[in-house]
């Protein structure tokens, strides 16, 4: 499966490739053409390599959101050996934004929980482009607890802009559903592996994101807020999104350096959407290796292993004292106070 729709930063590369195709199909002369094409192809290849080695964080966000980027259902089809889908939260509705079911790769059985943003217009409509309602998170937790009862590892695929922002979602307790997932995932007595395959959007991603091992696709991103949201709240200008993407440190490379993820799952050159078969193969291998690795942790230590993993996150200063305040500062402080109401978000 190939996809050739371009992102803005890829345009020069695609234009070069198009020129090569053009030359091959239109030219009548054959003499010397072969050589010229070979040189141009080499040029294109090295341009592509360089482009993808020097992606800006914002480029990464664009790739993670690419319309043709493989979704959870693509990986279900191409990365797994078996999959038996299990629907519903047994309470309200079957939220199509989260797909759940029993799965296997080779000898490893697991419960797959995946956020699905949809492969076409109809699916995207059904799943609100991967933004779950509370019943989706409750469906996920219900299936995780089913897995726990049968001592089956859990694999979560994360791909969401965030939890769905709507009236019904709030009426049915979006915040409570997220919080309970986060808490209860930390307590599970089976191995949990999480992989961010596209967008890792804030609390909606974290609610499937408490694992013993965290994987992340090379060009996925994971952030406390979208770059657009950050730029518009902080700098009152959503167009500064590229800068926000940079400062938020949301790429797989940055997050691995800071210890938020354990391993990066490689993607084919140009991103998973260029060659979804090979992306599926990489993910399959990474999941299999991760399951084998996490199964080494004694069962009674799994929850504590997860606790320790998240317990250490946080950077701050200790042994600090309040500064002294003099009168001058006090009046400056009052001025600040008068305007601070407007500064709150």
């Amino acid at each position, binding site marked *: 499966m190939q996809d050739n729709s371009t992102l803005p930063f890829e345009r020069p590369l695609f234009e070069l490739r198009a020129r090569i195709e053009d030359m091959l199909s239109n030219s009548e002369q054959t003499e010397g053409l072969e050589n010229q094409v070979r040189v141009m192809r080499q040029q294109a290849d090295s341009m592509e390599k360089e482009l993808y080695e020097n992606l800006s964080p914002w480029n990464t966000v664009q790739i993670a959101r690419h319309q043709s980027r493989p979704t959870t259902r693509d990986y279900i089809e191409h990365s797994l050996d078996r999959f038996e889908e299990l629907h519903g939260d047994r309470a309200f509705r079957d939220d199509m934004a989260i797909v759940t079911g029993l799965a296997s790769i080779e000898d490893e059985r697991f419960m797959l929980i995946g956020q699905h943003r949809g492969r076409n217009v109809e699916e995207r409509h059904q799943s609100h482009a991967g933004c779950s309602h509370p019943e989706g998170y409750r469906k996920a937790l219900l299936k995780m607890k089913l897995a726990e009862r049968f001592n089956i590892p859990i694999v979560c695929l994360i791909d969401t802009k965030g*939890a769905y*922002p*709507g*009236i019904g*979602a*709030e*009426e*049915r*307790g*979006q*915040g*409570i559903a*997220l*919080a*309970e997932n*986060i*808490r*209860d995932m*930390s*307590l599970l007595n089976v191995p949990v592996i999480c992989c961010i395959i596209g967008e890792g959007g*804030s*609390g909606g991603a974290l609610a499937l*994101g*408490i694992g013993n091992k965290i994987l992340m696709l090379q060009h996925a991103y994971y*952030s*406390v*807020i979208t770059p657009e*949201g*950050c730029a518009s709240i*902080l*700098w009152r*200008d959503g167009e500064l999104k590229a*800068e926000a993407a940079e*400062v*938020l440190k*949301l790429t797989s490379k940055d997050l691995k350096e800071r210890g*938020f993820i354990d391993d990066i799952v490689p993607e084919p050159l140009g991103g998973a959407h260029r060659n979804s078969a090979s992306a599926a193969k990489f993910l399959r291998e990474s999941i299999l290796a991760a399951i084998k690795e996490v199964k080494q942790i004694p069962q009674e230590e799994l929850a504590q292993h*997860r*606790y320790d993993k*998240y*317990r250490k*996150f*946080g*950077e*701050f*200063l*200790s*042994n*600090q*004292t*309040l500064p002294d305040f003099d009168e001058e*500062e006090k009046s400056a*402080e009052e001025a*600040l*106070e*008068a305007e*601070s*109401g407007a500064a*709150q*978000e």
Partner: protein
Amino acid sequence: MAFFGWDKLKLIGKSDKQQINKKEEGSGPAVKCKRCGEIIIKKMLEGNLGVCSHCNYHSHISAKTRINLLIDEGTFVEHDSDLRSLDILGFERHGKSYSKKLEQEIKKNRMLSAMLSGVGKLKERPVAIGVTDPNFIAGSMGSVVGEKFTRLAEHALEKRLPLIVVSGSGGGARMHEGLYSLMQMAKTSAALGKLREAGVPYISVVTDSTMGGIWASWAALGDVIIGEPGAHAGFTGPRVIKTTINQDLPEGFQRSEFLLEHGQLDLIVERCEMRDKLASLLDLLLGDTTKTA
């Protein structure tokens, strides 16, 4: 019961100066109610625990004031007051600097972080208590707030003390600390998981406003969840929802009364009754087993 800290009230809108001046003649400074817009003499508002006598709006009060309202006089011992946030990601662009913001907030609030935590007695019963201060960067959670909460929960677990946390945060997870902030949701929720398994009670008190990552982690995880009247609490802010779905939100959307009606709060308690109610709930939950004179 002694309390202090009313100077942190922030109810004045600039356009109301004139009206305020009029009312202030002879009766001292006045403030404007954020919800109903009524001008109230500050002293009267203070006497009413920061509750508007016209619309019953429970306005912001500082963390210190909250502790003084709930905890027996002279029994509060603060924990981890030495922790201070830092600008780990280098958020210093377009004239906005997180480091400077922190400095200003520390001066303004006379606190190093947005949370006050420690132990004390509530009507003679020892408790662990934490309060987020909505005046400190909107009471949002970065590494320090997450760490203080987690240490408090761990202390409560070790000593088997009931845990009470009063949340007030319009901000949720603090974006200036990126994924460090998001992971505080994981850290604090996991700590509450341990408390839950050990049977140590946790009461969450939700005040105006408790949003985003705070509501979607510790605030929504109480064994008992109490709301102050009219408190605004939810995951997504109303403005974002409104722009997404392009329709008006129902009256009272995401307020305590709405949450109670939709089964998300256990009860709504007036500020002046909170201390008695907490004591009564703990008595009924635990019996006399952990009560000491």
